[in-house]
């Protein structure tokens, strides 16, 4: 009995070890497939189909808009597989290491606009020149979007998908309460041409409404002002000018005034409190890029149904947008380039807008009915195609630099967030932000 007891225990231990071992092995096996890496993609399966992998971040939307399915239907010999990493902060460093080692890459890799300058400056020798691929027409794209995806020596390594022209989304019920107009034309006219007028409207709003703020947070005001200027953190020669550029300080000061005047709900973007603010009516306005409309609708839900509308921003401004690249190390780069060209063509971008509200970077799409006549039911049937096309065409070609993301992040999340939420003195917070940026840029 005793012996049997022992052997059975041994058997259990053995079984457990074996199970662990098998689990580990299985884990490895799955992993090696996971990145949809170049090893896999080179192969054709039994039916002679070619698999193209696409690496994206977040809920990118190309798949959700049904574009892959359409392409596979039109090209029966192609299979498209997508891998997605939730946050760009995690996606981008991995993309850099994969590019450096030339392995683990998907055939098509998406790049966010804040990283595009670094990609074109440091990685263009590892990416295909998509400007020469048949079906790609420079004239289809917004000039500045095309320029952002091209390296200094004129190689176009990234094709634009969407852009983030901004409007101002506002709550009609709160505007009415404040005695302000609610019609989107008149609302847009309140602050047309000057961000300071936006501040004045806010002060006027505050005298009438006590239980809601005018904007969601001071940082978004700052980002919106910075997004409407040609110069931001870099000048034309590629030098950093964030300390001296008057526009940067102007945006900072204006945002700080919003905080000082108590017009901000002190919320940070993409946090749970911010999300619930859309439904609860914690703030009356927010500068909203086209792609945010779907987000507001999701978060506002039934509670805020019929309360939101969208008007033109004081000045045309851009927030966000993405690109597609094709790494040279991919095994199917010719087929991948064809797909990238197709995905960014005006017809597909129009469909992308109709399904996902991601605004096309192909200006040739603006005349297509899906864009031109687009209305958004949740925003009181606002003619969003018209509003955002106007904003996109008016946005100046912003000079981007490799460290745009880090500078913007530190200005907002280290600097302005303190002013907004902790009440830090704006000058002290500015110094702290500058110190933090200097430290981040110092190699």
């Amino acid at each position: 009995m005793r012996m049997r007891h022992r052997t059975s225990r041994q058997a259990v231990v053995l079984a457990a070890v074996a199970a662990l071992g098998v689990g580990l092995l299985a884990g490895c096996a799955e992993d090696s497939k996971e990145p949809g890496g170049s090893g896999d993609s080179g192969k054709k399966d039994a039916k002679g189909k070619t698999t193209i992998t696409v690496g994206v971040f977040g809920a990118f939307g190309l798949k959700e808009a049904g574009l892959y399915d359409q392409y596979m239907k039109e090209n029966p010999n192609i299979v498209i597989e997508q891998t997605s990493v939730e946050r760009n902060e995690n996606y981008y460093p991995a993309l850099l290491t994969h590019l450096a080692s030339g392995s683990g890459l998907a055939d098509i890799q998406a790049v966010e606009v804040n990283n595009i300058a670094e990609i074109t400056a440091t990685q263009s020798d590892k990416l295909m020149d998509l400007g020469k691929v048949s079906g790609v027409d420079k004239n289809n794209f917004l000039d500045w979007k095309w320029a952002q995806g091209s390296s200094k020596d004129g190689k176009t390594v990234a094709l634009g998908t969407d852009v983030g022209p901004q409007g101002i989304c506002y709550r009609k019920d709160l505007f009415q309460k404040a005695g302000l107009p609610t019609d989107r034309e008149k609302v847009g006219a309140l602050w047309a041409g000057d961000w300071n007028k936006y501040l004045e409207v806010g002060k006027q709003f505050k005298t009438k409404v006590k239980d809601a703020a005018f904007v969601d947070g001071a940082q978004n005001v700052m980002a919106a002002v910075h997004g409407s200027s040609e110069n931001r953190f870099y000048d034309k020669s590629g030098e950093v000018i964030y300390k001296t550029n008057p526009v940067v300080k102007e945006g900072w000061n204006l945002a700080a005034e919003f905080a000082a005047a108590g017009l901000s709900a002190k919320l940070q973007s993409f946090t749970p409190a911010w999300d619930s603010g859309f439904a609860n009516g914690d703030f009356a306005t927010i500068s909203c890029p086209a792609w945010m409309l779907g987000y507001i609708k999701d978060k506002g839900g039934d509670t805020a149904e019929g309360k939101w509308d969208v008007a033109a921003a004081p000045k045309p401004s851009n927030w966000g947008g993405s690109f597609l690249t094709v790494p040279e190390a991919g095994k199917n780069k010719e087929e991948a380039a064809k797909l990238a060209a197709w995905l960014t063509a005006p017809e597909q971008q129009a469909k992308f807008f109709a399904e996902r509200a991601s605004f096309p970077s192909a200006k040739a799409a603006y005349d297509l009915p899906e864009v031109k006549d687009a209305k958004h039911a949740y925003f009181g049937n606002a003619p969003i195609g018209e509003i955002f096309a106007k904003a996109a065409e008016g946005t100046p070609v912003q000079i981007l630099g490799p460290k745009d993301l880090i500078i913007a992040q530190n200005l907002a999340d280290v600097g302005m967030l303190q002013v907004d939420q902790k009440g830090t003195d704006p000058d002290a917070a500015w110094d702290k932000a500058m110190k933090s940026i200097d430290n981040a840029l110092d190699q």
Partner: protein
Amino acid sequence: MVNQYETTAAPRGEGAAAPRVDKAPPSAKELKSRTWRSRRYRWDMKFSPYAMLLPFFLFFLAFGLFPLLYTGWASLHRVSLTDPNNMEWLGFKNFTRLLEDEFFWNALKNTVTIGLLSTVPQLVMALGIAHLLNYKLRGSWFFRVAVLTPYATSVAAATLVFVLLFGRDYGMINWGLGLVGIDNIDWKNGTWTSQLAVSSIVIWRWTGYNALIYLAAMQSIPNDLYESAALDGATRWQQFFHVTLPSLRPTILFTCVVSTIGATQLFGEPLLFNDGASPTGGPDHQFQTLGLYLYEQGWVNLHLGRASAIAWAMFLILLLVAAVNWLIARWLRKSEGRA
């Protein structure tokens, strides 16, 4: 233990009792095979433990030692994540600049304060809980599993719940404080409040684990000690202080070492406690730990060389802590010997 003696003792007795029938001297062949067998047996005893340990050391080489050395090498260079194969020799500049790097010192200070705020209450509470669990309880098994459950939850899940609890506008803790007339506290933005909040996550997750370790040690304290103490008229408290605590000394030291290592490497909780999971540790870096600063330098600012230097600095700090612990342990042992 008793079982083993019984099973091994029985056959020996049998062998001794039974008279041997075959007395013929063993043939040369058998002798050879016998020596071969005994040699194999000796080799088995000698080398199998190493063979069994080998897989661990192979993995350690690949995933422990190699990264450690490579990180050391990278820390002497300027390396960017945009081009990691291109290293520019810097010597010890990445280390000397740490001395003047206010963000590094801030992170070190935060690591120490959060470490103290989380470790001390955690171990004290664990001792108390272990003491309670040591009493004869109905369903003690249930309580033991219950105290261990926080340890089994993931950092991410636990932290997300705590973020909600410590929320400024709709958080449950502020709601509770509001009931007793205290205004909403902005937990995340204050220096002490945010560090307390982060510490509370660590405490919640690790107290039960330490309690079980203490409990195991308590159960190995012989009952006679308590009985004789009781005979001498010692109260429960006196028993705890004069019998339990001294017997637990090595265990307490062990949990201190493990908690210190954990506190030095604290990463997941402060990362996820910050909105948007950015590694700045709040708008004023008020709860940025060394682990977060390392991550920010390497994966946000893309300076792999600087991040490697921070990693090595952390490693050296841990060695220092280990040395101090060893000294304390030696001193304790000596003073015990004297007493």
